């Protein structure tokens, strides 16, 4: 219960709260971090404070065998209001959060951040539909296989998988994002407005949706080109809405969105080493796994 002293004096302790708030405001608006965060990062880097890692002990072992030293947790977030463009909102929200995480990692002297998880949060209640928080959290590490850098490589994969990619000559470098949305006005038959009794493709709508998806993937590619030579897109999400006619819009409209996120990598197919596949029988059957799974419902 040694922690109690550190909670301050409760709600009365306004001076500290206000000072802290001012520091956050000052720092975030200038693309920097408050002094107390910088201190924590610096002291963690110099081993004055314990290192912190999201890796399991198995990951820790592999990290040691592959020359990966955990440093600490780094994070960033951005609560974004998307007034005119959901797409830009997603793009900017994630990118701002990632930039902040990168800043923390650089201050910690990391040359990579692994196991980056992405989380969104909305505020409950009416009138809160048009804004949300984009948050990223990862483990900053020092990787012997990577050169010193003030611009750490970012990866959504764990340190183990990172090491596996490195072994095959593939270097994860960052997180690429592609997002696109568009409107489609259904003026007639093509969007399935006319009643019909035969099988037919709603070709207008399918062309539209295909275009939105392709554009998002094109943007993922464009974002990836700036970072590396490939993108392993492991998260994709799309939505299609129909909005009924009103006095300004005589026809029904459709809104489609697509978002794709992934780890950008640098690789050279010529230097790719075959690693040989050895069949292994895994005796961990699913039922047993489920029983072993230590899912902790801490909250």
């Amino acid at each position: 219960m040694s922690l109690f002293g550190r909670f301050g004096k409760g709600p009365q302790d306004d001076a500290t709260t206000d000072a802290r708030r001012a520091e956050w405001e000052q720092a975030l608006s200038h693309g920097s971090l408050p002094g107390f965060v910088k201190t924590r990062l610096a002291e963690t880097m110099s081993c004055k404070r314990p290192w912190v890692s999201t890796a399991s002990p198995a990951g820790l072992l592999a990290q040691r065998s592959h020359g990966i030293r955990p440093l600490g947790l780094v994070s960033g977030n951005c609560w974004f209001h998307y007034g005119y463009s959901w797409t830009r909102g997603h793009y900017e929200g994630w990118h701002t959060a990632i930039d902040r995480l990168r800043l923390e990692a650089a201050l910690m002297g990391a040359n990579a951040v692994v196991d980056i998880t992405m989380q969104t949060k909305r505020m409950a209640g009416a009138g809160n539909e048009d804004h949300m928080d984009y948050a990223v959290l990862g483990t900053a590490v020092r990787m012997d296989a990577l050169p010193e850098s003030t611009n750490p490589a970012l990866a959504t994969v764990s340190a183990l998988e990172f090491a596996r990619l490195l072994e095959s000559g593939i270097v994860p470098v960052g997180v690429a994002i592609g997002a696109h949305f568009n409107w489609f006005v259904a003026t007639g038959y093509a969007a399935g407005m006319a009643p019909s009794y035969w099988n037919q493709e709603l070709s207008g709508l399918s062309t539209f949706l295909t275009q939105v998806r392709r554009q998002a993937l094109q943007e993922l590619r464009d974002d990836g080109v700036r970072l590396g030579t490939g993108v392993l897109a492991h998260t994709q999400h799309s939505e299609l809405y129909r909005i009924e006619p009103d006095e300004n819009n005589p026809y029904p409209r459709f809104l489609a969105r697509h978002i794709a996120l992934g780890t950008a990598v640098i690789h050279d197919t010529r230097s790719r080493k075959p690693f040989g596949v050895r069949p292994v029988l895994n005796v961990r059957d699913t039922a047993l796994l489920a029983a072993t799974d230590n899912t902790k419902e801490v909250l």
Partner: protein
Amino acid sequence: MSDVTGDLPQHAVERLKGLRDTSRHGGIFTSDFSVNEFLMVGEAGFEPLGLVVGSCIYHTGIQYAGWAKNQEMSVLSQAMYEARELAMSRMEQEAQSLSADGVVGVRLEVKRMDWDKDILEFLAVGTAIAHSKGHPGFKGPAGKPFTSDLSGQDFWMLLQSGYRPLALVMGSCVYHVAHQSMMQSLGNLGRNVEMPLFTQAMYDARELAMERMQQEAQESGAEGVVAVQLHEGSHNWQPHVIEFFAIGTAVKPIEDAAVIPERLVPQIVIPVND
């Protein structure tokens, strides 16, 4: 073992005695280990002694936050921390009465009571284990049993990588996120902008929780913290009140060369069927 049984009720003492005394003569242990966990804990040179529990029913105090203000709800932060700590220390006390070296597979749960939203139950439960050959080098801080939420497999793995667990460390922060004023909300209409007050609240709350966990690890004399999880939730509080909760196992390198297991060279396995 009798020197630490002070506060435990008679029936608990008797249950614990039964577990420990008979465990070496074909007697009985209790555990919620899976088969794999049981085998791996044995492989690590430890044996289970018994399930140990601690719980705490806690009434959280009331605190009001300024409507338009970002601030920590320190009364709630303290409540969430103290209640977990009480449950944990009661579980530790049971483990100590068993002369256990530590507790693995600790689950820390929070339940809300139906009849009153201000009452929460905190439960800590895990399996107390002891080194089969009575090696003294595995105790946690201050000679008490170590605690860890790692599974049996992870415990074995941790020892293989040259570390031993010290303590389950945690940091909690309950935070009130400022409401936007009507003017701010109108100003945002139709615009793509960051909402700095909300961003700052999430940032600050997360930072406080992580820092507190790290601080606790430092106090236990750890070199690092593994398997850290950061949870974010709201326990039926009003929409603008959130909790960040960081939890992980503080670890320390194994000092005694005699027990350092042979180093494993991990083999990376890629499942080809998923």
